[in-house]
């Protein structure tokens, strides 16, 4: 169960998923599948994972050392946008050998399925991961149909 969020990409509910293909196109010089209009370059801060169940959609942003107060979340229909600022403290008296940590403002827009309920979004920040849950509408959940 645990591995599923980190491995398979077997549905194409989200248009951002298509950016993987667009990268392949860059590598192989082909452009068979158009990239999602909101797709971003791989390696963009922060990395995002999205998982889905029949009840809800879970979005995880992997952003260590964030001030939760700097975060701004908004949702319009099925379009979730997260923006914020990650300030990396620089020690002026030190010599830097590596500076790989992202410093500055960021913004990511995630296209959710059409059946999410934008009025009941929940978000919490723990161990450097921002976890956003968006429930799906009742009507959209699969229902058991009894055959008489």
């Amino acid at each position, binding site marked *: 169960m645990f591995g599923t969020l980190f491995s398979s*990409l077997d549905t194409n509910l989200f248009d951002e998923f298509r950016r993987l293909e667009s990268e392949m196109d860059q590598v192989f010089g082909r452009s068979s599948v158009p990239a999602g209009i909101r797709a971003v370059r791989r390696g963009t801060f*922060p990395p995002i994972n*999205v998982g889905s*169940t029949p009840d809800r959609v879970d979005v995880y942003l992997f952003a260590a050392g964030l001030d939760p107060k700097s975060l701004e979340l908004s949702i319009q229909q099925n379009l979730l946008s997260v923006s914020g600022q990650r300030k990396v403290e620089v*020690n002026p008296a030190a*010599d830097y050998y590596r500076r790989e940590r992202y410093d500055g403002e960021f913004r990511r827009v995630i296209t959710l399925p059409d059946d999410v309920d934008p009025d009941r979004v929940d978000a919490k920040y723990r161990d450097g991961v921002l976890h956003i849950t968006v429930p799906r509408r009742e009507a959209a959940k699969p229902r058991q149909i009894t055959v008489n």
Partner: protein
Amino acid sequence: MTAAAQAMAKREPADVAGAKAREDELTLAPPVDIFEDAHGIAVQAELPGVSKDRLNVQADRNSLLIEGDVAIDMPSGMEAVYADVQATRYRRSFVLSGELETERIEASLKDGLLTVRIPKRAEFRPRKIEVRVA
């Protein structure tokens, strides 16, 4: 025989197998900042999703290893729809140099950000040399 091949040949077979297994495991290299001041060297590594009890920081005389496992809340039966992060283990190691006092290493973790401080031995801390006017 190349130097690398010689080194491989010298190792015990079990050791080679162990190293191979570790290499095969999919791991993420956390982004780091490394800086040095008069007191020592500091490494700041990003390990989002790693709690204190799933973090492993090891240092011996000449190496520093940072390892951590990601554990996040997930509902059962979840399917991945999109994944930038495709592994649940971070791992990165560095070679240290002799002037660092690895017995006095300090590490702290806050909001997925790990800070490791390795002090320099006293005799290696820079001293201000006063220039006298002759």
